[in-house]
């Protein structure tokens, strides 16, 4: 199946979940990512059970702070 990830289409095995996609894409810190599926932000608890379909559009939206914490 083809899924568009961050604007670029790629082939994936059928049955891949959002959680699986995160690890396939080597997202090292999934806690720092929000996932948007077809324009809707997914709940974090749904990453595991959400199975991707052909033609889905996924966006990884990263937490970005700044250079410093205080």
């Amino acid at each position, binding site marked *: 199946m083809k899924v568009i990830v961050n604007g670029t289409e790629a082939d994936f095995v059928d049955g891949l979940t959002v959680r699986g996609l995160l690890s396939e894409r080597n997202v090292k810190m999934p806690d720092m990512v929000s996932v948007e599926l077809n324009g809707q932000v997914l709940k974090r608890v749904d990453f595991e059970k959400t199975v991707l379909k052909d033609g889905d559009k996924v966006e990884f939206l990263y937490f970005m702070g700044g250079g*410093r914490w205080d």
Partner: protein
Amino acid sequence: MGLTEEQIERYSRHIVLRQVGGVGQEKLLSSKVLIIGAGGLGSPAGLYLAAAGVGTIGIVDADKVELSNLHRQIIHHTADVGLEKVKSAEAKMRAINPDVTVRTYHRRLKADNIREIIKGYDFVIDGTDNFPAKFLINDACYFEKIPFSHAGVLEFCGQLMTVLPGETTCYRCIFNAPPPVGAVPSCSQAGVLGVLPGVIGSLQATEAIKYLLGIGKLLTDTLLTYDALEMEFRAVKVSRNPNCPLCGKEPRITELKDEKPPVCDLKKVE
């Protein structure tokens, strides 16, 4: 109000723009923008908004200028090391444009002081560097109904989005809550290309000016991401989240509270 001859000359390249004109310039001169954070994002935003003749600019920061700030925080100069950032920033903004009234707030924003500070401003620029502050600004601007520009930078990437509270996608619609403790890759040592916040902070100033003038299309319901290494901008469409804890159908956040900052343990990260 009317512009003086000197102002007509100073702002002539604005005034000749059909979308600005003398009326728009007067609008800018009577506008109030609050910049939260006199750092990498706040530096270009402050300088450009002052140069543009935004009449009142507030600047909030609790820190002093450090040597390691200078590669990106261009409002501060080498001789300013050790000064309060707000004082250093005020001096540069006033030097660029004496038309501008600068209000300085040398303090850290908290749930119990942010509303009284942002009240009365037309637009807020989030130039902060930490997640608890970003969520606090998002929430406070929602309760006070003040439009703001969110932005963040990390390494070679940056992002921004304009929020019209209650109307367009807010920060919590996308990022429900701060990342969990321990998820953050590094703390005060996180790197950033010096020019990166310059790009993003300048875009934030652009959004502020567009909002104040009521021109163009704002960066609402869109997260603009910038990757300097790939030299790629992407406008990612986002939409209001019905499950948003702040502006969703069943809001859980009904008053301001301080989010806990994550534990900063550099040794653990190494």
